[in-house]
C-alpha cells in the first residue's frame, strides 16, 4: 500500500536550488535511507515530505496516511518530565495513558527518570525521550531526521529493532543517516547526489 508519493520535487533554499526532480514512492513495508553529503538537502527534503515547507518546494507530494516526523530539534521541553513531555506532546497524536507512556519510557531505558526534568538528562537520554514517541504513535509513516544521533550502541540496536518491527506490521520509514546501512534486505537508498543541482 502506498503511503507517500513525491514526483518531480524540486527544493530551493534562499536563492539556491538544492535538489531537482526527486521522485519517491514509499509503500508499507519499506525502509528508505536518504543519503547525501552535509548540506545537500536531506533535512529540507524531509521537511518538504512532512508538509512543513511550501515556499521553495515545487512538484507534487501526496501523503495518504498520517505521518510522524521527528526532526533534529526534539520538541522536548527541558522543564518538563519525560512523562509530561510525551503526554502533552505538541503533535497531539499520543492518546496513550500515563501507564502506557511509562512502559514506553521503560523500553528506552528511562525507567526511574520519569519524573525528572528532561533538562537534567544527558543528550542521549533526551534523544531517547523523543524516540519513545515511536512506541506510542499510530502513524504508519515515519520520517526520521538523523534518528541515530547521540544514541549509544545499545540505543542504535533498539532503534533498529523498533524500525524493523514497525515495517513488519505494515509501516514504512524514511530516515536520514550517515551511518552505514543497517537494514540490508529491507532497505532502499535515495542518494541525493543524483538529484543535486550542479
Amino acid at each position, binding site marked *: 500500500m502506498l503511503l507517500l508519493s513525491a514526483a518531480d520535487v524540486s527544493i530551493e533554499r534562499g536563492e539556491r536550488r538544492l535538489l531537482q526532480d526527486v521522485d519517491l514512492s514509499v509503500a508499507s513495508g519499506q525502509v528508505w535511507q536518504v543519503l547525501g553529503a552535509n548540506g545537500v538537502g536531506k533535512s529540507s527534503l524531509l*521537511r518538504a515530505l*512532512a*508538509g*512543513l*515547507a*511550501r*515556499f521553495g518546494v515545487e512538484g507534487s507530494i501526496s501523503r495518504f*496516511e*498520517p*505521518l510522524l*516526523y521527528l*526532526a*533534529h*530539534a*526534539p*520538541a*522536548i*521541553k527541558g*522543564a*518538563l518530565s519525560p512523562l*509530561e*513531555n510525551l*503526554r*502533552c*506532546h*505538541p*503533535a*497531539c*497524536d499520543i*492518546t496513550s495513558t500515563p501507564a502506557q507512556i511509562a512502559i514506553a519510557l521503560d523500553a528506552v531505558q528511562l525507567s526511574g527518570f520519569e519524573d525528572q*526534568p528532561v533538562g537534567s538528562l544527558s543528550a542521549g537520554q533526551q534523544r531517547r525521550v523523543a524516540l519513545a514517541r515511536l512506541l506510542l504513535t*499510530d502513524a*504508519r509513516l515515519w520520517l526520521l531526521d538523523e534518528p541515530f544521533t547521540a544514541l549509544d550502541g545499545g540505543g542504535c540496536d533498539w532503534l533498529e529493532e523498533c524500525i524493523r518491527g514497525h515495517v513488519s506490521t505494515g509501516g514504512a520509514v524514511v530516515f536520514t543517516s550517515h551511518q552505514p546501512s543497517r537494514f540490508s534486505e529491507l532497505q532502499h537508498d535515495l542518494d541525493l547526489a543524483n538529484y543535486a543541482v550542479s
Partner: protein
Amino acid sequence: MQSVDRPSLSLLTAFGRQFRRHGQALMASLADVANPLLFFFMVVTLFPLGLGPDPQQLASMAPGILWVVALLASLMVSARMFASDFEDGSLEQMALAPHPLSVLALGEVAAHWLATGCLLALVSPLFAMMLGLPPQGLGVLVLSLLLGTLCLTLIGAVGSALTVSIRRGGLLLSLLIIPLNVPVLIFGSAAVTEAVMGRDPSTWLTLMGALAAGMLALAPLAVGAALRISLDS
C-alpha cells in the same frame, strides 16, 4: 486501512494539553513570570523620584503611568512567547498535529496570559497604592487591566508569531504591535481616570470588552497563519 476510525484527541483535550505544557514550562522558570512584575515595581518606584513627591500630582497621573507601564511589561514578555517553541522544534510538531494550529497556539497564549497579564492585573492595586491612586479607582484598574492585558497578549502573540523566525526581531515586533496597542491604552487609562473622578467608566470598559472579544475570535487565526509562515522559512 486503519486510518478511518483512529482514535484521536478531542480538540478540547488537545487545547488543554498545550495549555498545560506551556503552563508547566512557565512555572518551572519563575524568573520569566517574576520579570514583568519586577519591571512594573521598579518603574513605579522611579516615577515619584523623577516627578517629585507631590501626592496630588502623582495621583492624577497614576492611571496613565500604570497603564503605560503595564503595556511595556506586556510588550517585554510577549516578544519571546513562541521563541522557545520555535527553537526546540515544538512548533513544527504543532503544525503537523491533526488539530488546527490556531487552537493549539491559543492554548499556549492562554497559559502565557494567566502567568503574565492576569497576574499583573491582580497585583496592580499594590502598585497603584504606591502611586497614591484613589481607592475608588482600584477595582476598575484591575478590571481594565484584566481585559486590557488579554488584548495586549493576543496582539503580542500575533507579532511574536510573525517575527519568531527572525533573529533580533524584537525591534520589528515593537514597531508592529505598539500602534495596535494604542487603542487599548487609551480605553484603559480613560476608564481608570473616569473611575477616579467618580464618574461611570462603563463606556470605556464596554469598549475594552468588545475589543477583547473581537481579538479572542480573530487573533488565533492570525497567529496560526503567521506561525505557518514563520515555519516555512
